[in-house]
């Protein structure tokens, strides 16, 4: 087996931090940091990816590790589907658990990128969910007062 390359991705707020290493590289020594292995998600299993959590100076950072070759293959496949125009409808998922406080759109509403779709209230704070791109709302999966969990479907922009 040739020396394998590993792709490590630290999930970020806006951008992920991606580092690729070969087995010959010698990473910086971080004696005091203890990565905790997380239960793999369905996507992780499908991608053969490992998921870790490391707390650094209070920052709770999730790092995924997978073969760089596999990641490259998958990216090529994704690019291919985008080029052939199969971007498809976009399902918005809840990034925080909470309660639906307001819904500004209904099925058929035309939205521009950045338009308010709905808001989720968690811990006394209202968080607005905005359209990631222009399109037509093709589904609204929640109503005011509904409880949503992390990853729950909220709406679909087609």
């Amino acid at each position: 087996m040739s020396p394998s390359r590993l792709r490590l991705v630290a999930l970020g707020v806006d951008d992920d931090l991606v580092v690729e290493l070969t087995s010959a590289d010698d990473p910086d020594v971080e004696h005091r940091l203890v990565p905790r292995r997380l239960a793999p998600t369905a996507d992780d299993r499908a991608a053969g990816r490992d998921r870790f959590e490391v707390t650094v100076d209070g920052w709770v950072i999730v790092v995924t590790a997978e073969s760089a070759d596999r990641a490259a293959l998958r990216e090529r496949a994704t690019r291919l589907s985008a080029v052939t125009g199969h971007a498809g409808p976009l399902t918005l998922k809840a990034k925080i658990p909470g309660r639906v406080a307001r819904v500004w759109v209904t099925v058929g509403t035309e939205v521009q990128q950045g338009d308010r779709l709905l808001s989720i209230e968690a811990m006394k704070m209202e968080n607005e969910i905005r359209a990631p791109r222009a399109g037509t709302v093709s589904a609204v999966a929640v109503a005011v007062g509904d409880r949503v969990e992390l990853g729950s479907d909220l709406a679909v922009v087609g």
Partner: protein
Amino acid sequence: MKQSRTEPPFRRLLIANRGEIALRIIRACRELDIETVAVFSDADADALHVRAADQSYRVGPAPAAASYLVADAIIAAAVAAGADAIHPGYGFLSEQAAFAAAVEARGIVFVGPTPDTLAGLGDKIAARQSARANDVPIVPGTFEPIAVGGVGDEQRIASIASEIGYPVLVKAAAGGGGRGMRRVDDPAELSAAVTAAAGEALQSFGSASVYLEHYVEGGRHVEVQLLGDAHGNIVALGERDCSIQRRHQKLVEEAPAPGLTADDRRRIHGLAVRVARSVGLRNAATAEFLVTGSGEAYFLEVNARLQVEHGVTELVSGIDLVHEQLWIAAGQPLSDEVVAASHDLVQPDRHAIELRISAEDPARAFAPMPGRISRWREPAGPGVRVDSGVAEGMTVSGDYDPLLSKILVVAPDRDGAIRRARRAVAELETGGIQTTLPFHAWLLRHPAFVSGAVRTDLVDRDWAPSPLREAAARRAISAVAQLLRPGRSASEDAGTPGVAGHPDDRPDATTGGAWAQIARREATERWP
């Protein structure tokens, strides 16, 4: 009046709250041989305060509006439990006059001010009027609710605001705890802001009444701890600086307020006592002031309850404020120790700092981050006190306030307290959910904070999390790379410091190292 503190002040007390403050009150009751009764929502059936109390009653489903805010359910629990007193903690029903009155109507003691005092202070406009009538300086602003939506209202508001001077704050008369506030810099935005604030106030507080106040740039938030007994005695127990805030909500509090002279303290303590006297204050309360860069103090409002940050005052004064609340509620006069402490606190000989550890992501504008706490190890050691409402393995619900824990430190001086706080922050281990911990680590080395130059706009001006988080992400990647490096054996992994004894934390331990395992998976699984 002679004191007789030989018998417990109450036989059985119900705590109408949850989280760390419920535990704090249970601890005080234990020390005074008072039996405790907890209440809980469905989300809290297994919470620490329920486990700690002698008995517990369910009061409703998860949303606070259906459980911790339902006065009838809580009073029914108190009656069923045979409680002779109710401590409301902070938030929830703590400052609701109608709740206090309903409790007293059932012959149960409400640990707090009288319903009349609560009604008077709950209306911030009435509190401003009362301060003005007692010659206590107040921030320029209105003394009547602002009318919205009527003919000519828009012009009237605009002329009032320009008289007060921009920027102005639109505040809800029934607001509190930093909620129901909007800052307006541009006169063109005023009308919309007032309308929106009134709508929000109606939704959140049940009253659309709002007022305007001049926003003081570069100000500090200083508040005075007050205790009053049922016999008309009122003292100030020193002050706290709570300038480190985001969204008008406190992140860090300290006592005493840095940079004040003994004369400054005497003056501001005196103003607070004057306000308290004018409203007939009983039990514990806090008078909030805005202190300008030039040292002038303006009265803002009174919070007629125990504050989240009461612990820093306890560490500096040596007085247990919850004990005192209970003795006062039982009709005892202020103790000699309290009176002596109120004099000593003009020149305190200790410094305390509190850090609020909340389930919020400081890299996402402090957005709330509920979830499961997979790791939680609290700091300990000299001069450290931790008031927590959580434990490892618990799930933080999105239904309540994100405050998880308060880390308090005390030292002979401010410099020592900052050093101790840095050490405590480094000792706190967290995982599973993002907390405000990285903010605290940064703040405790921020030159302006370290020098005592605290201002309410410090966080907005100086907190830039992206580079800090990215540096942490790089180190996290290095740590994972190391863990996965070739040749790392199972026995080596098991010997990693901090791992032994915690099976959940054990890194993947496979012969030949995880790196090799990932490579093998690559060879055996086909893609796509």
